[in-house]
């Protein structure tokens, strides 16, 4: 396990005397996921590189890669069109000297699915992203799968928080991607697009490793990337994020003789010494919805494998 990220994001902001604008529809920039991602980005050799961030959120990572990591240029887009404008504003306030090094892709951009985004990807050395790995709880096919495993959606799981799209993705829409079966369809779709439009670009992606690092590595390899872990941290399981998908995966494998090949990885303690399956974790949540549960967040770099 890697050491904790040395510089806490909130502390860094405090020292710099500036806080990013962070409305409810944006992913919290002080979340431990962001800290871990930035610890990985610091180790990703971004100096002098052109970087594209898929899902810019508040823009704190853009400021970080330009100011701290020494990236020469940054592009970025988001599914929520408000966020790329927010990122521009935050970059101007957090790191005004670097604002002109950022070229936004405006509008609602799913992955890199616009001409402008694809054009910029072709000029990119490193693509960075932290995008959802849990299917939308109300997705019809996902609901059918969950019900087939007799797994109920917990009370309140249908409720959509303001930053809902930062946590969940439309599962059925990405079913053409094999790793969608374990919640990695959106990430696999991005890997394939990058491979197609920027075959020499590296990727640096942030993952909640509830499904286990092994299968995430497998997904990278299956899509032509050699994976390596750049940073890792045990973080609180977000109270509002539904884990019934992971429970359904474990239940579905019961009786297949493959149960041990896929055991989800939650922890009962912040040091990650007491592992729990998703089924165990769900049982604890049912007893106490506010129970402290943890999982690993890892930053994984994918280096394209030469054909």
């Amino acid at each position: 396990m890697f050491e904790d990220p040395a510089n806490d994001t909130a502390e860094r902001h405090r020292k710099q005397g500036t806080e990013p604008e962070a409305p409810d529809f944006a992913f919290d920039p002080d979340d431990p996921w962001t800290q871990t991602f930035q610890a990985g980005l610091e180790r990703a050799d971004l100096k002098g590189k052109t970087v594209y961030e898929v899902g810019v959120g508040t823009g704190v990572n853009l400021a970080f890669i330009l100011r701290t990591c020494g990236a020469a240029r940054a592009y970025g887009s988001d599914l929520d069109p408000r966020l790329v404008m927010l990122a521009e504003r935050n970059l101007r306030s957090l790191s005004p000297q670097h604002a002109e090094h950022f070229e936004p892709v405006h509008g609602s951009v799913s992955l890199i699915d616009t001409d402008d985004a694809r054009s910029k990807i072709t000029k990119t050395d490193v693509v960075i992203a932290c995008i959802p790995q849990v299917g939308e709880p109300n997705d019809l096919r996902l609901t059918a799968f969950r019900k087939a495993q007799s797994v109920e959606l917990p009370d309140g799981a249908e409720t959509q928080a303001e930053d809902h799209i930062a946590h969940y993705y439309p599962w059925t829409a990405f079913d053409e991607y094999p790793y969608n079966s374990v919640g990695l369809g959106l990430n696999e779709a991005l890997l394939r697009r990058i491979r197609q439009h920027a075959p020499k670009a590296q990727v640096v992606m942030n993952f909640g490793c509830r499904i286990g690092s092994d299968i995430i590595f497998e997904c990278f390899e299956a899509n032509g990337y050699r994976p390596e872990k750049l940073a890792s941290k045990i973080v609180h399981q977000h109270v509002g994020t539904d884990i019934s998908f992971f429970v359904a995966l474990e239940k579905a494998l019961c009786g297949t003789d493959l149960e041990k090949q896929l055991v989800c990885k939650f922890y009962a303690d912040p040091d990650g010494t007491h592992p729990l399956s998703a089924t165990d974790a769900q049982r604890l949540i049912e007893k106490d919805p506010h129970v402290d549960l943890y999982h690993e967040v890892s930053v994984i770099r994918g280096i394209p494998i030469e054909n």
Partner: protein
Amino acid sequence: MQDSNTIDCNGLSPAPTVLRIMQALIGRKDSNVPLNVLVGSDCDCARLSVSLGDLADDVQLASNLRQFATIN
């Protein structure tokens, strides 16, 4: 729902392959014809069938698309 009668499991290890097949079978429109499952050439189809249990009767495993045309 699942629109195609063929799913791609190429590159997946056995556990996610079984999950993907289960998920596809649940979402199928036409359950009267077997689901075509594209697997890697290194797939142990016999072992996969054992893991699928009764569901194995509902699928056709093949390592390239042309084989489905032969089977169906």
